[in-house]
């Protein structure tokens, strides 16, 4: 069984490093991107099994996490790739969405709030990838 490939899209370099370190240690292949544009490109080119996506992009201009998730869902090549949004943005924006994300609101499988503990993160990934 080949290693599952996970794409991490986040502008927080340190967090990407941390997640990469953890996921590789427990046996996933990790690719990453610091911008949403590059992330979208990598998603279409490399067809990861799962995308971990941050909502907030303070850095270079480009679509934010919500937009990117919709863009991915709209592309037939990427629409089947499950997306987990992982972000500290919820309280800051006080966004309106039901707690367990459904397809109607956001085309994502799960929403994890930062900071997250490895148990929960790995648990969710395992749950989605099977």
């Amino acid at each position, binding site marked *: 069984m080949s290693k599952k490939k996970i794409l991490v899209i986040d502008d927080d370099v*340190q967090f990407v490093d941390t997640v990469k370190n953890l996921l590789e240690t427990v046996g996933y292949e990790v690719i990453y991107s610091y911008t949403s544009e590059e992330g979208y490109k990598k998603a279409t080119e490399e067809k990861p099994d799962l995308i971990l996506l941050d909502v907030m992009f303070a850095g270079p201009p480009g679509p934010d996490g919500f937009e990117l998730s919709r863009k991915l869902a709209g592309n037939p090549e990427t629409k089947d790739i499950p997306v987990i949004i992982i972000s500290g943005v919820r309280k800051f924006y006080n966004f309106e969405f039901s*707690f367990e994300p459904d397809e109607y609101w956001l085309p994502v499988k799960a929403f994890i709030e930062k900071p997250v503990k490895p148990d929960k993160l790995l648990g969710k990934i395992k749950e989605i990838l099977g």
Partner: protein
Amino acid sequence: MEDTSNFNLDWCWKRGDKVLTKQVWNIYKYQMKQSLRSKYTISIIVVFIFLIVAITVTGLKTLNIFLFKQTRERIRKNINSAWLILNQRKEYVETILKTFNFKISGKTSILNIKQRLIEIAPQMNVDILNIYDRRGRVIFRVFNPFVLNDRPDDALVKKAINMEIPVSGFALFPPSRLKKEGERIVNKCTINDKLIEGMFMGTALPIFDTTGNLKYVIEAGIILNKMYEIVDKITETVFVYKIYKGKRVGTATIFLKDLRISTSVLYKGGQRAIGTRVSRVVAHSVLTNGIPWTGRAWVVNDWYITRYDPIKDVNGKIIGMLYIGELEKPYKDLKIQTLSIYLVIILIGLIAAFVIIYSITGKIIGQVEELSKATKKLAQGDLSFRVKVRTQDELGTLAQSFNKMAEEIERDRNTIERINRNYLDMLGFVSHELKNPLASAILNAYSLKDGYLGELTTAQKKAIESIVRSLDYFEDMIKNYLDLARIEKGELHVKLSENVDVGKDVIQPVIEDLERQAKNKNMIIENRVKDVKITCDPNLLRIVYDNLVSNAIKYGKEGGRIILDYEIGEKEIKFSVYNEGKGIPPDRINHLFKKFQRFDVEESTGRKGTGLGLFIVKEIIEKHNGKVWAESKYGEWAKFIFTIPKDGGE
């Protein structure tokens, strides 16, 4: 003044309805207290009314005196006119007699004189025309030629004989004499079927022979009894037959002693009121004392302003009265009319005064009221309110000063608010910025601790556990400060969603997050909240549960139970979070929900909490129109309870 004062106070008091009276009195008292304006207006009006009453009394007195004087003056003039008319009639007789210049001479005998008198009698228009000899014996009566030779006791004739001059004036003729004068005279002097004396007015003219010896006396005159021509003429001349409300304004009467023998006073039926008598007071004054009487008097059937003059016979003896009277009613009505005009003027003046005073006090009191309103607003925190400067006096200056003060305060407060806002913004920003590095640190630390990155030695494990605890505390703090910043900035808006499944949408994610923490202390979280749907802000309610369950884990005893339960009430749903452990000391239970209130040391970490969690809980629950409180048996258990209205508090 808004008006609830339309209560009839008198009515309420008279009714003796105690409750109602009390209410009315309270309203009354309230209004009195309320309105300085009406107080001032009323006191000034009271002074005004006092002045008006004083002026009215003085005015009335002056008016009375004026009217009285005027009336007196007129009555005096009128009685003179009456006398003039009466005397004219007398002089007319006297003049005709004198014109003929009767003298006994060779050519003119007594026969000639008789003949002459018979000729002129119709023109003279008299009742009596007699010739007497020089001893006073009647030798000829023109109007009753067959009765003669009697010697009546006639004052005029006697005086003419004695003094040998013409004598004019009044005299009383007794009934016996009147009978001799003929049936016509008797009829004239019969009043109420009784023959009374006759009042004679006329002239006695002595006739001399050529040598100057008195030969005869001619007497001519009128019996005034029932003789209406004169009184009618007086009435006509003096009062021009004025009629006031169906009544003659002026009246004239000739009295024989106190008896009306000729008058223009009419009974209601239109007959003349002869045969009636004058009042005793008048009789006493005029007939007994000879003093003319002026004043108000009741004449036959109404009040008149009257004048009674004595009528004296040729010897100066009072034998009757001449009366004139003017109906009092027109005067009275004039007085009432004058008075009503005066009262109308006063009333208009009073109303005008009231309006002026009210508007002046309105300006003053309005300014005061506005100032007091503004002060109240200021005290309530509305710093934008400004007073309208209505007057240019000291009050206006006060209003200006007030506005200046309010401006200063507002500016200061805005500055303070800006500073505070900046502080809160920064607090939020810093807290949020800390989140990112914290996220990496926590993920790293937990990965190490939980062995995902390889086995650790016991010392390493001990160290990483300490790091993890610090990071947890750090995370708590950041969460709480972010929430606090939002609350303090007033950004905590409740976004209500309907049909929120509290057990599934709110509690379940919280438990998932905290499950590991609970497991570490061998605690079981029992969620009994199932299928409870309410209207609430699920994100905010999750913060509530996050805090309460975190606390339950932190302060609960190792291996203790945590129970999340609910109870449906009439209007609200009661949710509770229960844990076993030390509980809360009774003296602290009421202070739990205050900001920065830290009451206990966390057992597992040896650290205090941030002191913000329960304050945030309280703010969120209150925004949902609910209540939150704690119950505890110290040493055994603690329970946090909050309520959410079924309708979401709308």
